[in-house]
């Protein structure tokens, strides 16, 4: 696979190293002269100096034959632009962008740049996983397929506690796929009983989240349903 990486900061450099180790052909583009010199000592001809959002620099790096373009500079606008031209102008099939500020994710989305990886967002999700404040965690979002997988905690007083899966009253278009209890998980049957302290994994159509939260939220069930 031929990969073009834009940005040889910590992320770009390490990515380049790993991808080369795995036998890929690769070019990294770096526009800071000093950084370029440092990285060149190790990566040699695999790193090029230049502004990776300039078209001629991308062309010199061979973007036209790239199978994958990864934009990991520190500037979201650059990463968006690079991936947009890679896809739309040069027909690159796969792009991956780094999103530095999770608030900018909507721009990546709007301009069709995906996946956009945000370390801040990932860490925030991990924190939520450790400390489930609202009790709901998005494990996977597939907006294209209009599906998501969420994890819900069955807290004290939850109307779901003590009920069999078939009696939970979750809406059509959702399914309990796993229950995590005492550190292990199992795939439940219709008559498996949900207990307080369980973490329940559900797959659902986009948009059903509120209805499902109502089923699990202590006290919230009735008022929401009404």
């Amino acid at each position, binding site marked *: 696979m031929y990969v073009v990486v834009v940005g040889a900061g910590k992320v770009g450099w390490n990515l380049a190293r790993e991808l080369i180790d795995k036998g890929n052909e690769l070019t990294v583009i770096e526009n800071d002269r000093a950084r370029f010199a440092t990285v060149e000592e190790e990566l040699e001809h695999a790193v090029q100096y230049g502004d990776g959002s*300039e*078209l001629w620099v991308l062309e010199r790096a061979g973007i036209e034959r790239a199978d994958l373009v990864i934009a990991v500079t520190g500037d979201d*606008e*650059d990463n*968006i632009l690079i991936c947009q*031209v890679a896809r739309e102008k040069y027909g690159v099939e796969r792009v991956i962008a780094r999103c530095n500020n999770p608030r900018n994710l*909507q*721009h990546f989305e709007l301009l069709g740049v995906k996946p956009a990886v945000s370390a801040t967002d990932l860490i925030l999700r991990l924190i939520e996983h450790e400390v489930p404040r609202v009790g709901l965690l998005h494990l996977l979002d597939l907006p294209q397929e209009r599906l998501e997988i969420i994890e819900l905690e069955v807290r004290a007083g939850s109307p779901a506690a003590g009920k069999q899966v078939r009696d939970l009253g979750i809406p059509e278009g959702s399914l309990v796929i796993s229950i995590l209890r005492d550190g292990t998980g199992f795939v439940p049957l219709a008559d498996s009983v949900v207990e307080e302290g369980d973490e329940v994994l559900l797959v659902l159509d986009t948009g059903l989240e509120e209805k499902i939260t109502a089923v699990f939220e202590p006290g919230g069930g009735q008022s929401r349903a009404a």
Partner: protein
Amino acid sequence: MFVVIVGCGRVGSSIAKKMLAEGHDVSVLDEDPEAIAQLEKGETSTWEDLGGSFTVGTALEIDALLEAGIDRADAFVASTDGDNTNLVIAQVAQRRYGVEKVVVRVLDPARARWYEEQGLRTVCPTQIAIEMLETAVGVGV
């Protein structure tokens, strides 16, 4: 007409002042709170007293763009000093908020040309300067 101008340097501020003088509603966004001085240069009253509005915020920030009024703009000018920033926010104005007239300043002629082909109204000062200088120096004569 209500126009939102992002980037209050020489270019953005000149357009803003001219449009305000012509009687349009003008909202300017810049990340530097001091940039308002550009708008008040040579004036005896403040920008706001003149009838303009000014928002401090970064160009990519949706909240700042909304505060500046991107969602009700008839025209949008992206004139920050960053080509990529301009190209991103111009597309946000056009695609997400359906602003009718969107104009983007792009210094790099290559990017300006390609995005123009994609349906953005780009203005490339570099290209204009090249052509004027070529004429002045007599290239192709």
